[in-house]
């Protein structure tokens, strides 16, 4: 079986080499990956440039490889059925699943080669950009620390307010102040969000203490990065003067002065030797504008301050990211081959693109599935479900279950933000995208191909 499958895989790969497709794609990737950072200048900072390299080029490479994979996979069977080349192969002692798997493997070999090329170019571009930048060595080090090292995100330690949220909810319902259409869980969630916002509120002249339980960490190595953003209760966007106090011992506090603008994300580099022996990092945001009238809301439910702790090198992070993209391409190849078994090349390509667009719309699907209404009524109106909501909701909820694992396994934003792409995430990608989605699609494809007559 192995010889036959590999023979088909090698044939597929060799076809792409001889038809100069591999060369064309490699050239396109080189031009795109090198050219895009030149074309898009970002925010004219070194950090912006590195983000362009990591984000835009990775997205570009992913898009090109996805389109190509779908295109080749859709034509893999349909074009050979159409021009009858498959007759010569299928009449040999070869199971159809071997043929299917061979094509799949061939495509993956092509993708693997191109992904390796992508990784090498991206890595070289990012390192070269930092080395050749005219910025100060400190800035270069900071940018390098921020993007070319993978970081794990830590949330600040917060009190467990589930009990008080439950009690408050109970009180609201009993007093009749809660909307009747809302469920207990919905109200409790709203109350929890409210408690969270109150916790992270800083009045004028006030302060907010944040504590992070860091993992054991090597001193004097890479720096820690505190990311935060706040919004103002006032419409005017005046800057806020403040300082961060690092540490717990009042005699040995380290102060860093900052000026923050509402709505604009900010970050703070913290040397690792400021970590307490217990690996607990305590930082306090102290507002120095007591005369201001604006209260600062330091967080909402989707964005609390976070501490980025170095967790590994850029190389391994990039490899894990590329591996997840490879898993996505495995699925796309399976999808393309499956629809290619059924339809002619253009129709197959069209159908596959349609399915991919559906899967890519997972954000919208999820918002509908979680909000419970297809069309949200205006503020103040009762959330009455229309007939359309009822009809579509169940469909979307089911669909959301399918699309959720795909949408959350996106390595590009993580890589571009210098976040860690964990081994667990890579394993999840392998399990979900290859083990489940691709396997189910492949089984369906093979079953359909087995039933297909080649007239």
């Amino acid at each position: 079986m192995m010889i036959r499958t590999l023979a088909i895989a090698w044939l597929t790969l060799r076809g792409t080499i001889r038809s100069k497709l591999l060369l064309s794609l490699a050239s396109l990737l080189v031009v795109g990956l090198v050219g895009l950072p030149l074309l898009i200048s970002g925010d004219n900072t070194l950090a912006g440039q590195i983000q362009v390299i990591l984000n835009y080029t990775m997205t570009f490479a992913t898009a090109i490889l996805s389109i190509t994979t779908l295109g080749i996979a859709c034509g893999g069977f349909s074009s050979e059925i159409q021009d009858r080349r498959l007759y010569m192969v299928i009449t040999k002692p070869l199971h159809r699943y071997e043929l299917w798997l061979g094509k799949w493997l061939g495509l993956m070999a092509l993708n693997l080669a191109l992904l390796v090329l992508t990784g090498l170019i991206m890595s070289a571009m990012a390192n070269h950009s930092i080395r050749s930048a005219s910025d100060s060595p400190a800035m270069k080090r900071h940018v390098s620390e921020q993007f070319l090292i993978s970081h794990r995100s830590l949330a600040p330690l917060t009190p467990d307010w589930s009990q008080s949220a439950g009690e408050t909810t109970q009180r609201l319902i009993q007093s009749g102040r809660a909307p009747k259409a809302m469920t207990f869980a919905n109200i409790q969630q709203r109350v929890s969000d409210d408690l969270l916002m109150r916790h992270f509120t800083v009045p004028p002249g006030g302060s907010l203490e944040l504590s992070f339980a860091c993992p054991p960490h090597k001193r004097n190595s890479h720096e820690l990065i505190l990311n935060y953003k706040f919004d103002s209760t006032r419409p005017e966007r005046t800057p806020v003067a403040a300082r961060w106090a690092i540490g717990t011992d009042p005699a040995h506090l380290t102060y860093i002065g900052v000026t923050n603008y509402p709505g604009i994300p900010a970050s703070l580099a913290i040397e690792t030797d400021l970590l307490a022996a217990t690996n607990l990092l305590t930082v306090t945001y102290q507002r120095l504008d007591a005369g201001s009238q604006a209260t600062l809301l330091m967080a909402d439910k989707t964005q609390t301050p976070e501490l980025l702790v170095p967790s590994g090198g850029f190389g391994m992070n990039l490899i894990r990211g590329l591996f997840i993209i490879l898993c996505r391409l495995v699925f796309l190849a399976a999808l393309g081959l499956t629809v290619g078994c059924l339809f002619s090349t253009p129709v197959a390509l069209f159908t596959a693109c349609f399915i991919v667009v559906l899967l890519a719309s997972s954000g919208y699907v999820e918002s509908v599935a979680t909000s419970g209404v297809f069309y949200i009524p205006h503020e103040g109106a009762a959330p009455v479900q229309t007939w359309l909501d009822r009809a579509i909701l169940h469909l979307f909820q089911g669909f959301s279950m399918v699309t959720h694992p795909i949408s959350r396994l996106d390595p590009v934003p993580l890589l571009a933000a210098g976040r860690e792409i964990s081994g667990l995430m890579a394993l999840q990608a392998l399990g979900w995208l290859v083990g489940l989605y691709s396997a189910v699609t492949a089984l369906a494809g093979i079953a359909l191909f087995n039933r297909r007559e080649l007239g």
Partner: protein
Amino acid sequence: MIKCLKQFIALTGLALTDLFRQPATFLIILTSMACTILVPLAISHQLGQPSRIAVDSALAFEFVFGLVLTGFTACSTLHNECQSGTILIVFSKPVSRLMFFLAKFTAITLLLAFFVYCSSAASLLAERLAPRNFEFDILGVYLILASPFIAFIPAGLMNFRTQRSFVPSALFLYALTLAALVVILSTFDREGHHVAFGSMIEWRIISACLLEGIALVLLAAIAISLASRLAAPATVMILLFLLFTGLVSDHLANLLATLPPAGFVLQMILPDIQHFWPADQLADGGIISGTVIGHAAIYAVLYSGGVLGLGYAAFKNRQF
């Protein structure tokens, strides 16, 4: 002369029939219509300005799907014929290559005219169906959801009884259904009350769709010229590249200005797609004037003429 005309009509007619019978043509047009009509409904509550979103997205869909349709049809009608050898039979007859080439271009242009007609109708409906004050046009929604059934059931029945091809019947019936829906919704308001004909429809959209149609014809000239030598993936890739350069043309112009004279030449060669993007002119109650359309048409004719000349030069020397 008459003989030439007859040949031209025969070649164009055959190419057009073939294109209309392709399932991919049907799918591309149908999906474009579905996206145009349904997507604004789905996203309008998240972004606000539902009417503008409906129009903008409808115009964007017309551009993107029109581009895909152009690339696909150009390759299907020219490159694939060269590959499969059917072109040899045509050229064994007293048919000039120029006539063959122009007939193929004309067939794509006619198909695009049909597509623009459908897109215009769908865009008018999308604008009408966009929610106002967070309320649906229930009558419109019911009618639009029923429209595929109204068109496809008779087409299916025709196929069942007469074995007539489903795809062109379904396409034409769907186009008729959309036109009928525009007429019906022109005479009723959102509450179902009878109103003066057309008072509830944004007719300005038609000129915007027409402007885009002219751009698509220009792209068709490029596509057919490329298809004389290249296969579908390469042709579509180049078209997408041109669309991309068109979208970033301002930025590109600044970049190219720093590279004289190569930059100047490149700027002259690349089609100026932004001249054909009407969404900004439509915003805030603006209209696309006849002068704008006229200028765009002249630009498209001149540009297409040049591109077709180059395409024919490539096709003339091609050996089969």
